[in-house]
């Protein structure tokens, strides 16, 4: 595991499969997971300071684009990952729910920062104490605000989830149960 890498090539590792000269065979789950996890298109739902940190993340120094997230989408129809960055007020919660519901499956949610994960330091009448009260969340990134490297770590966890997801998960009874728990169809 700790061998010195002499070539300077950054390529994605192939999934486990059967390889012979001329062909490579693997399962559809793994191939689709590989394609999906290296081309996640985020929907930046940025409301506060974490949004500024996200701007730093997308800029050249930390560059989220090298993970495949080069193309941001402000329309939920074309986005894979909903990144909620910032304080979500109780007035904003129905808007967040609507945006989440209008995303096409498969979809994932990353909650960036303390305010989105749990309300942060704003334990008050107007702030929603955590977006997981209204939508299901896959990865939480703590911090106030989290450094771009922490968010990249969160994105890599999302990549791990995306790469290992079964193709039928969105039609499974557990998923439907979870959706019903949140009040979605």
């Amino acid at each position, binding site marked *: 595991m700790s061998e010195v890498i002499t070539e300077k090539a950054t390529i994605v590792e192939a999934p486990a499969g059967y390889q012979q000269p001329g062909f490579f065979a693997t399962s559809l789950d793994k191939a689709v997971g590989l394609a999906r996890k290296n081309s996640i298109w985020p929907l930046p739902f940025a409301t506060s300071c974490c949004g500024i940190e996200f701007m730093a993340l997308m800029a050249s120094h930390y560059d989220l684009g090298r993970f495949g997230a080069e193309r941001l989408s402000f329309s939920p129809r074309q986005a894979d990952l909903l990144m909620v960055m910032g304080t979500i007020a109780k007035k904003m919660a129905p808007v967040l*729910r609507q*945006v989440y*519901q*209008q995303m096409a499956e498969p979809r994932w949610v990353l909650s960036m920062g303390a305010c989105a994960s749990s309300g942060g330091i704003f334990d008050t009448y107007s702030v929603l104490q955590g977006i997981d009260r209204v939508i299901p969340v896959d990865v939480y990134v703590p911090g106030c605000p989290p450094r771009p490297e922490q968010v990249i770590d969160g994105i890599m966890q999302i990549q791990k989830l995306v790469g290992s997801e079964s193709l039928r998960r969105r039609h499974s009874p557990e998923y439907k149960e979870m959706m019903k728990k949140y009040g*979605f169809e």
Partner: protein
Amino acid sequence: MFVSNQNYFFMHNNILDFIPIVITLAVAAGFVVLVMLVTHWLGPNRKTHVKGESFECGIEQKGNARIPFSIKYFLVAILFVLFDVEVIFMYPWAVNFKELGMLGFMEMGLFIAFFLVGFYYIMKKGALKWE
């Protein structure tokens, strides 16, 4: 069939020479249809009522998305199409001008006269009056 080879750009060959074009068109159209059918039948989807609504940045949509627009744009466009088609009909006449002779000229004149009647009607009705 004797074909003179002076001043002719296109030598009349048999109709079978057009088969490759037909195959190209069929493959292009067939590919589109096939891919759309495959995605609609084999692709996974989960339709819900909220997902199908128009996207309005997360808020409830109010009212119709159709806005009223001036009919004059549509009229200009549709009249252009009509008269453009008339001009297109004049192209084969131009190519075979010599053989069609006087009779062809009179027939085309009648054709254009019909269009002129229509044009006179349009002008009288003020369809092209831009306010």
